[in-house]
């Protein structure tokens, strides 16, 4: 009797301290307002660029008949890729039973939601007639991979939102009484969103089973969205796209960029939200291993993707590969492969580099490399079609992104940052309830330190 009482008292204490630490950041402080103000200002400039594009047509971009997909589509692929991380962390690692993913899972879901939500907008920025966007639903042809993409991205977004929201419910219930001094409206929102959660055993049971359903459901969905995205390319006959391993190649690449994004976010939250207690070196060490692992898998697929055609050197493949290895795109290609993938992977194999700061730097390189890699996947295969390119203005032959195009691309990135900021400023970024219950965590940490 006494032990259980003291147990629940300790639990209460722990809950209070976790809630205190996490909820400290749920407020509209100066930093938040300045940051959002800055983002909005940049966004306005970028939106003006988009207005120009709307008025004058896609001619304001560097895209032309030869290379008709460029930065926008690369950005789309990058966004879809990065959003896959939600599935990897919370689902794959969570279902296997790794406890250390608990504090990271919500961060991963926030990233997933933000990137998946804006991916659709990126596609719209690439459309020649964005005003006809609704035609996709009115006249959609099921045979087109674009329709599959629209369908799975929407579904994935929904399920990711749920995976973010449902584990949040208990936290909302805990938090709604501890929000003194915050706007009334926010408290009201918490009240509604906590859907009358009282931590009743039956509620806990239902919630857990619901989460399990979602965790399973999201695996095929995530595979579907990125495989379908890879099919946008692989289903065409062009050299450089016409590859049967494009699906797994894309997915393994997606894990790399997503993990890098999570590491950067973790580092940021740890520092500016003062969550060192919860996002410990231990967590960084673990996620560092994940990044090393997925990078090695990705390297493996890279070897497959480039070595096999490079060995055979079929006519058009050889032109494409020469452009990458020693031609127009050589600098970018080797830069990305070395500094965005190979060197980071090697560094991550050493424990000294799996510390927060070095890893954050490595992750920045990996993320930038991932973005550029998408350009390398999308752009060069278009420059050398089956039939020669002749009798067109010379600027058409080589794709050079314009300022307007870059600004519109930037706009979508800013939207992602805004969504991430809002989600992590309005709601707790760490799972309060779970962390409070997490008694084994200390034990694990001890193990690790030995």
């Amino acid at each position, binding site marked *: 009797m006494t032990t259980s009482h003291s147990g629940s008292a300790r639990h209460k204490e722990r809950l209070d301290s976790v809630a205190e630490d996490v909820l400290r950041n749920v407020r509209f402080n100066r930093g938040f307002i300045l940051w959002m103000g800055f983002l909005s200002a940049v966004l306005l400039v970028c939106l003006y660029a988009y207005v120009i594009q709307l008025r004058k047509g896609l001619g304001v971009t560097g895209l*032309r008949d030869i290379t008709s*997909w460029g930065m926008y589509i690369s950005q789309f692929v990058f966004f879809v890729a990065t959003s896959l991380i939600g599935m990897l962390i919370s689902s794959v690692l969570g279902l296997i039973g790794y406890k250390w993913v608990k504090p990271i899972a919500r961060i991963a879901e926030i990233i997933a939601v933000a990137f998946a939500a804006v991916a659709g907008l990126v596609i719209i920025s690439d459309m*020649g007639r964005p005003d006809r966007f609704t035609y996709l639903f009115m006249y959609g042809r099921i045979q*087109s991979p674009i329709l599959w993409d629209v369908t799975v991205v929407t579904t994935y977004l929904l399920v990711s939102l749920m995976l973010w929201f449902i584990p949040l419910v208990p936290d909302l219930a805990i938090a709604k009484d501890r929000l003194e001094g915050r706007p009334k409206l926010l408290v009201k929102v918490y009240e509604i969103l906590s859907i009358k959660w009282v931590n009743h055993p039956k509620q806990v049971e239902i919630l857990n089973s619901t989460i399990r359903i979602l965790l399973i459901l999201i695996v095929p969905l995530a595979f579907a969205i990125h495989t379908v995205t890879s099919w946008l390319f692989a289903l065409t006959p062009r050299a450089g796209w016409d590859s049967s391993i494009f699906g797994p190649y894309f997915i393994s690449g997606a894990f790399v960029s997503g993990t890098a994004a999570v590491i950067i976010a973790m580092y940021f939250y740890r520092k500016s939200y003062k969550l060192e207690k919860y996002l410990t070196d231990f967590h960084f060490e673990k996620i560092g291993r994940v990044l090393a692992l997925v990078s090695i898998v990705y390297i493996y697929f890279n070897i497959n993707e480039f070595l096999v055609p490079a060995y055979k050197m079929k006519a058009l493949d050889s032109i494409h590969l020469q452009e990458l290895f020693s031609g127009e795109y050589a600098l970018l290609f080797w830069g990305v492969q070395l500094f965005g993938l190979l060197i980071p992977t090697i560094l991550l194999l050493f424990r000294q580099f799996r510390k927060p700061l070095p890893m954050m730097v490595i992750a920045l390189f990996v993320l930038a490399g991932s973005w550029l890699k998408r350009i390398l996947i999308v752009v060069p295969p278009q420059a050398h079609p089956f039939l020669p390119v002749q*009798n*067109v203005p010379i600027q058409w032959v080589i794709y050079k992104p314009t300022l307007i195009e870059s600004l519109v691309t930037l706009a979508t990135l800013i939207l992602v940052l805004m969504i991430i900021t809002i989600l992590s400023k309005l709601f707790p970024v760490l799972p309060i309830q779970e962390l409070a219950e997490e008694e084994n965590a200390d034990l694990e940490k001890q193990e690790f330190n030995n």
Partner: protein
Amino acid sequence: MTWQFFKQIPMSEKKKKEVPEDSKLDDIVESSRRDFLKKVGIVGAASVTGAAAIYAGYRHEKEKPSGEMVKVLTEDNRLVEIPKEQVKDYKPDLKALQTRGRVGLKGKKWVMVLDLSKCRNARKCVAACQGAHHLRPYEYHINTLVMQESHNTPAYYMPKTCQHCDNPPCVSVCPVDATFKRQDGIVLIDNERCIGCRFCMAACPYSARMFHWQKPKGEEADKGQEYNIELNVPQKKGTISKCLFSADRLREGMLPYCVSACPNGVFYFGDENENAVTNGTTKETVILSELLEKNGAYRLMPELGTKPRVYYLPPKNRIFEFKQWTPPEYIETT
């Protein structure tokens, strides 16, 4: 089938006047000729109509007494008689143009044959096409390319249109049915529907498609004109355009713009169902299967399985020397 029927009417009418029976020959000739033209009038009008019943007017003959019956062709291809007073001129609206454009010409299977041994890069096909479709000099539905596989193999000119593939990868990927294949084999574009995603461009192995990156050339001039899906005019910003096999001309029984513009006899065009193609320059009609067989015809990139409807005759036995053409410097204009 439809077309043969059209053709019969004037022919059977015409023979009348060639067997003159009395001295008032002029009159007979005159009236049968007028009859003939009336019928051609019907054909012309009927062939440009799509929806509802077709009432083609007798524009040439306002003086005829009323109560008279006239013969007209209905949309379902029956020849019927109706009182002349009920005949109204019919101008197809957008909906009719779209419907008939999507259906295509029944019983036809258009096919094009290009004899590369005759192409001297006159580029008249390009000019005629760009004129008809309101394109800039560097915007192509048809482009003549210099082809040379290696320095040991011959260089030759190859006019390249859309191949109107029977297994068209571009159509497969279109998300909104904006590009589609018709029963007569033509792959068309509906720029009232296209969302400008350019997936079809990525998928087409023949680089046959172009995109309106900016305001099309004829935008101001074409303002207010009803959109004709078979001509793809007015062109629209932010949508795709490409070779249409001059579907509008075919509907009127004429050869495509490029085909009849070529001065060197490169193009043959016809109906595979009739197994005959007609040369656009000499107007000579030949048997398709014989032409292909005797000249060792081939299709572009058959290994891709796209099954083009365009055949090429190899550049063999050319009677002229290949002259390298330096294209002018194309500058983008608005």
